[in-house]
């Protein structure tokens, strides 16, 4: 059974999605989906332990060896990613039943769970596979289900946001397809590690250069790097709360993973960072992204919008760490992946709880919520502090390593700008706090109660994780370090 762990990770949710249709009652489907998520979570934990102990695991599908068949290839990097995704998916799923009772009509519940599981399948598939074309297929599974999930939102703007996302996402995917096609044309293989070997000979050709450019642009569309982020804010703002919490914490992370995978593993560091002025371009885009998105966040009236723009800024930080191009930089990026997933899922789930109670997430409606929903609001405050990067929170850890990385690389100006960006985060978080704690409740809103426990349990689990991993950093730092060192070929 242990040998089949990699494939089980992908196939269990894949088979569970159609099985949802055979269970008719909404609650039953929820329990089933929750169990499936928990199972994949256990599975990915086992995988990570196995990988940390004995190194990379490969799994040949259909028994055909690598360049001919498709293989799954789990190393430290993607085992870490799988664990992040599966944990978040499980925790968020816990609150799903309560939330969608309120936000979706009864006949859509089963469909919702199916789509959720399919989206999860897609992400696992992208992360686990070792085959470039297979990435495209699973990318489409996860994005198609994401479009449909977003469109489930009640507001009609959800439809429009989903359509925009569909157009942008498909363009991105087609760019990736072109890139993969050119790589295949020059090397005759689709397997990633095989590509890495064979690209050395043809690395100087213009075709490979263009293929690289197309892959990068396509991926940047998917990960919403400034200025290709336009689809994201509305998509997050109008989707059902659970969907936002799930996608915000996972989908852009998967794109960041692909970026790291393609540049480091497939093309190799020397190609990626010498042939193109990639480092400086992405560094600048990352920094500009941090500032533009943070400033925009300050002026938003919808709290979901504020956090969505903040997500774009966080993606900026990840890209900065990545483009520093040192082992510490990538490690900072990986840490931020992990930490941001914890923060944002907690924050968006808390917003889901507020949506559940007052039916709106407009900033002006937050008046007085600090006293009425103390547990939810304090979760938002802690999540916000973490977002800013206050010590003793996870946000501090990743910012700290990001600063170390930029100073190590002699980029003082970058370090200063990172600090300035964090100051902007203080402003937009403060606006929420001010409204919730220092204003009296709105008339007619005096009797708002605390969120139900099905919300509070997952929110607080995430908040506690936020603090725990901010103090005891051994686990996350150790794994992230091992993963980034293996990318740079350093043996610990």
């Amino acid at each position, binding site marked *: 059974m242990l040998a089949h762990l990699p494939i089980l990770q992908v196939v269990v949710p894949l088979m569970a999605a159609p099985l949802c249709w055979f269970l008719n009652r909404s609650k039953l489907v929820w329990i089933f989906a929750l169990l499936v998520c928990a199972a994949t979570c256990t599975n990915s934990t086992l995988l990570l332990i196995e990988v940390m102990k004995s190194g990379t695991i490969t799994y040949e599908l259909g028994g055909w060896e690598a360049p001919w068949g498709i293989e799954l290839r789990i190393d430290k990097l993607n085992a870490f990613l799988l664990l992040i995704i599966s944990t978040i998916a499980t925790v968020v799923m816990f609150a799903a039943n309560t939330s969608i009772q309120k936000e979706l009509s009864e006949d859509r519940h089963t469909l919702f769970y199916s789509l959720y599981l399919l989206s999860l399948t897609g992400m696992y598939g992208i992360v686990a596979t070792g085959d470039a074309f297979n990435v495209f297929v699973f990318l489409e599974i996860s994005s*198609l289900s994401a479009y449909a999930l977003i469109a489930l939102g009640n507001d009609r703007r959800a*439809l429009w946001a989903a*359509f925009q996302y569909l*157009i942008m996402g498909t363009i991105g995917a087609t760019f990736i397809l072109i890139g993969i*096609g050119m790589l295949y044309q020059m090397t005759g293989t689709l397997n990633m590690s095989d590509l890495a070997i064979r690209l050395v000979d043809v690395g100087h050709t213009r075709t490979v250069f263009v293929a690289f450019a197309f892959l990068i642009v396509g991926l940047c569309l998917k990960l919403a790097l400034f200025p290709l982020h336009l689809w994201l804010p509305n998509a997050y703002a109008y989707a059902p709360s659970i969907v936002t919490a799930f996608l915000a914490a996972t989908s852009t992370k998967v794109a960041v993973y692909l970026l790291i995978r393609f540049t480091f593993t497939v093309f190799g560091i020397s190609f990626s960072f010498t042939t193109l002025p990639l480092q400086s371009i992405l560094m600048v885009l990352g920094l500009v992204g941090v500032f533009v998105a943070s400033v925009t966040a300050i002026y938003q009236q919808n709290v979901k919008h504020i956090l969505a723009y903040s997500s774009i800024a966080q993606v900026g930080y990840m890209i900065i760490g990545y483009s520093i191009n040192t082992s510490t930089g990538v490690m900072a990026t990986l840490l931020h992946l992990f930490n941001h997933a914890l923060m944002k899922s907690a924050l968006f789930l808390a917003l889901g709880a507020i949506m559940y109670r007052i039916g709106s997430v407009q900033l002006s409606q937050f008046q007085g919520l600090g006293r009425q929903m103390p547990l939810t609001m304090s979760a938002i405050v802690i999540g916000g502090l973490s977002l800013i990067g206050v010590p003793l929170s996870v946000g501090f850890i990743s910012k700290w390593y990001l600063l170390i990385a930029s100073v190590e690389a002699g980029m003082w100006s970058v370090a200063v700008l990172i600090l300035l960006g964090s100051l902007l985060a203080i402003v937009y978080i403060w606006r929420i706090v001010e409204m919730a704690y220092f204003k009296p409740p709105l008339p007619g809103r005096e009797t708002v109660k605390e969120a139900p426990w099905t919300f509070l349990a997952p929110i607080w689990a995430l908040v506690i994780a936020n603090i725990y991993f901010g103090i005891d950093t051994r686990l996350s730092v150790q794994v992230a370090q091992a993963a980034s060192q293996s990318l740079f070929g350093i043996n610990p």
Partner: protein
Amino acid sequence: MFLGLYNYWIAILLMMIGFYIVIAHGNLVKKLVGLTIFQTSVFIFYISVGVVERGSAPILAEGISDYSNPLPHVLILTAIVVGIATTALGLALVIRIKESYGCVEEDEIQKLDQLNEEKS
């Protein structure tokens, strides 16, 4: 050089026409048509990659030794399916947009949204 590469160039030209329709046109249905053309042209590119001169279709038969490369065909079969799935979902979205906004033009939808925001 021209003779050796013109096939790719035509594919690229077609891709760009499709791409242009996607980003420049405001009508949502037409955007989807553009997307279809864009993708189909990428398929043409892939298939062009797999062509072998004097090769024949990759179905094994007596007396034929040169076959064109089967792998791009497989990839494109998959990609076509993905394409139609995307189109179907996109069209469903368009129908819903039409129902709730009453129009399928990008400009008008954005105008309606702005009006909405000012009201609230």
